[in-house]
């Protein structure tokens, strides 16, 4: 199946004469640069939005230069490949079983030394069993780095889009939370069910409606998702001095 990127390149080449060439494309590539790794945990529902991957990967491909693959790898905390996951994703609505001591140690090491976890409560109401269980686990995994609201000037809100409004299937919070270690936030937590807004079935139909904002809220959810992915791959790049004047001037308009 032809990807949207290739289709657009060909179209522009034909109509505009612009020699849009593909960047050196690997032959027989099977391991993409970016893919989602979803954490499978015990108890509760570890996979509330199984259909978000292809839409989100396509969106990443379409909007950014990231070489994303519509591929999801499901992994347990005991799997050593966890450490090679660019983007660890964890979602749920219900309370889940406490992690074992070994699982907590693995996750502590992963997050302390460079790993990234995006977790979301997909219940769409806040205060769900998942929310309670996740906060409990995080308090034990990173006891010195509690979950806090990320300030409006956090790199996550500026990594690709200048995010003013967070999207999601529901707008539970106008912010995301995170556990930050120095200038790096290895844990990002949302309760707006972003993946619910990203999910589309095999016929191309959205799985969930977005309330109360409708399609603009869905668009904002994709923008937030892209920002989280770009933040995961660039950290506080947007805090470099060279970006300051541009971001300031655009935020004023």
């Amino acid at each position, binding site marked *: 199946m032809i990807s949207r990127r290739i289709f657009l390149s060909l179209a522009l080449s034909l109509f505009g004469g612009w020699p849009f060439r593909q960047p*050196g494309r*690997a*032959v027989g590539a099977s391991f993409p640069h970016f893919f989602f790794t979803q954490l499978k945990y015990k108890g509760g529902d570890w996979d509330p939005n199984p259909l978000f991957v292809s839409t989100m990967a396509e969106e990443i491909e379409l*909007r950014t230069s990231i070489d994303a693959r519509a591929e999801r790898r499901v992994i347990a905390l005991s799997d050593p490949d966890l450490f090679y996951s660019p983007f660890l994703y964890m979602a749920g609505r219900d309370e889940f079983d406490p992690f074992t001591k070994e699982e907590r140690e693995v996750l502590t090491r992963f997050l302390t030394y*460079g790993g990234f976890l995006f977790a979301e409560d997909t219940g769409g109401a806040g205060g769900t069993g998942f929310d309670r269980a996740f906060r409990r686990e995080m308090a034990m995994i990173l006891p010195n780095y509690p979950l806090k609201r990320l300030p409006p000037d956090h790199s996550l809100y500026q990594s690709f889009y200048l995010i003013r409004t967070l999207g999601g299937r529901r707008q539970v919070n106008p912010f995301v939370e995170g556990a930050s270690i120095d200038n790096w936030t290895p844990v990002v937590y949302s309760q707006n069910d972003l993946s619910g807004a990203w999910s589309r079935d095999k016929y191309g139909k959205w799985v969930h409606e977005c309330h109360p904002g409708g399609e603009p809220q869905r668009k904002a959810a994709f923008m937030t998702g892209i920002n989280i992915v770009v933040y995961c791959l660039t950290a506080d790049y947007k805090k470099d001095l060279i*970006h300051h004047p541009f971001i300031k001037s655009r935020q004023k308009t």
Partner: protein
Amino acid sequence: MNEIMNLEQMTIDPVFPLWLIMLLFGLGLAAALIQYGMNRDRLGKRRSLALALLRLGAISLVVAIALNPSLVVTKAQKIAPTLAVIVDTSRSMGQAAPQDKASRLDHAKALLTAGASPLLGALSQNFEVSLYGLADSLTPLTTDELGRLKAGGNKGNISEALKTLGGKRTLALLLSDGNLRLTEGELPQLAAITVPLGNPDTFRDILIKEIRAPSLAFRDREVSIDVTIKSYGYKDLTLPIFLRDGGKQLMAKNVIVPSGPGEVTARLSFVPAEVGRINLSIAVPTQVGEHIVTNNRAGFSLKVVRDKIRILMVSGTPSMNYRFLRNALKSDPTLDLLSFVIMRTPTDILNVPTQEQSLIPFPAETIFTKELPNFDLVIFDNFDYSLFLRPPYLESLRKFVREGGGFAMIGGPNVFKEAMNGLSPIGDMLPFHFAEQEFYRRDGPVRVRLTQAGARHPIMRFSGDFRKEGAALRPLWQEMPPLDGINLVDAKKSATVLLENAGGIPWPVLTVSEHGKGRVLALTTDYAWKWYMGMVAAGKGTQTYLLLMHRMVRWLTKDPRLDPVQISLPETPPKAGQEIDVRVQFQADDPARRTETAVTYEVINPDGIKIESTLKPVSHTGQQLLSFLPEQAGIYRIRIDTPQGRLEESISLAGPLDRLDGAPDHDQLRRIAAATGGQFAPPDGNLLKTIEGYGKKREKQFTSESNLPIWATPLVMAIILGLLSLEWYLRRRWGLI
């Protein structure tokens, strides 16, 4: 030497206690009287008296011997005063007034040895004269040596000299221009008559007295150098001071020198543009009537280092490789990273107005036409530069590397294969060719192994302790997690492969080479971040990845700390004519020793000629002392060729007259005379009288005393025996025996 003898007194020194001697004398007298009484009736009064007197005489002489009398003899000797004639032979004594061909030293020699009545000959009449030269040390001289004497050496220490001579000499005669060191607080015991040479009133000179410059400067940061100019004999002169780097003038500044002897200090500043040792000079133009022109120029060296290594990194896409490399570079405070991440390519579609996205245009033109020289290292990380960089920019990058910059290519699927042939600027620089057809592969895990060259390369020697690493490095790389993708390349012949694919075809993974004055590195994978997380997963820390990245940067930017051989120059500025020892430190342990034996040295003098140098053994392992004798002032280059390449250091040597303050300092001579109880005596007709007057005051007599024994002689013993024999004869004749 005159002698006077005096017999002043007689003394006794009894061999027995005096009372015993007197008792024996009394007993002898009594015995003689008894003998007289006994013999008077038999022999008559006269004969009896004669025998008694003979016995009494013998007894008296024995008693006199026992008393041991002697005469005290005193001899007084008159000694001629000793005079140490000290001739100042330091450099300033070689100066002559412009209208005078004879130097100050020549005048001193003429005063002592020339003319109808040379001073040295006249002094020898009344003094015991010894001759010395004084510069760096006090040196005894003969009269012949005085004639051949030449000025040279540093200011002499007159305090030390007078102290050395003080115990043996009575008077010192010092001929000098006053350029002497006098240690404060010490008053030498030897009176010095100081004879001034040179004329301070007619002396005219401009000299660079002092240069205060930091020994270390940072590139692109202003360096200030304070220069003190001293002048003699010029009035309100406006003088330009030039700061030069070889023939290139860096700065000029005008100062007004004060009238009469005086100093003025000026601050000159410049911004060093390149790292390394630079040899600078300060110069002032020669003025009319100057006595010394060589001190109008002074050289010094400055080591310029980077305050920070400035890195430009352009990443073709947000990626784990970018984030981990960025974190590694940001974790080192000596690195200054400016990075650009290509967030979207022309094929990516933006669905929001510009105001709602944070992307900035990649300022390729500004960077590659203006700013490139401000960086030390450029990194392309999985970057398809063909979309953003026009050919002139690539040419700028090649020029940047040729002129000493560093360039690193991190691989991945985005690298622009078509431009990588040898004809393109980037392809020309890179240490590899792409393999045919396929240029990036992600079809299987790639484990890497350290090559033999890699094990020796500075990038891979993480701690500098090679013996440990030799055993530890290979297993370390063997246990690294496999890479998910590599570019398939062939190393150029001129390149060195440090890491390669461990299974199947040994595709190079980490390759280095040189290009012009710069260095190039290719890490042909976008999965190096797995080396970081792999070690985290194994619970082994993150140091391997961080060290590798830091050392890659330092090697690319030629950080001297990574050099296998370190050169340490002498801390104190050396001078021409003095042997110089340069310390050469090798990396320790076995491979380094092999390096050590394969090293060759060269010392090139300012004329570009190789001069003799010797290696001295030192006790420290892996260290050598390179020694050479520079005969002239100027810049000497020290070249060390190692199997890893050539190292070059340069050292700037001052000439003998550089910075020489040759003004006569007669006040110093007055101070010396006053401090020693001597006299400041100009070289006129009264000089001899003055010296002789001081000599008379210090004439000395030597008195000796000896004892002359009176009775303890063989004659007295013969008299005693004679008296006793005569007594025995008379007794026999007169019938008593």
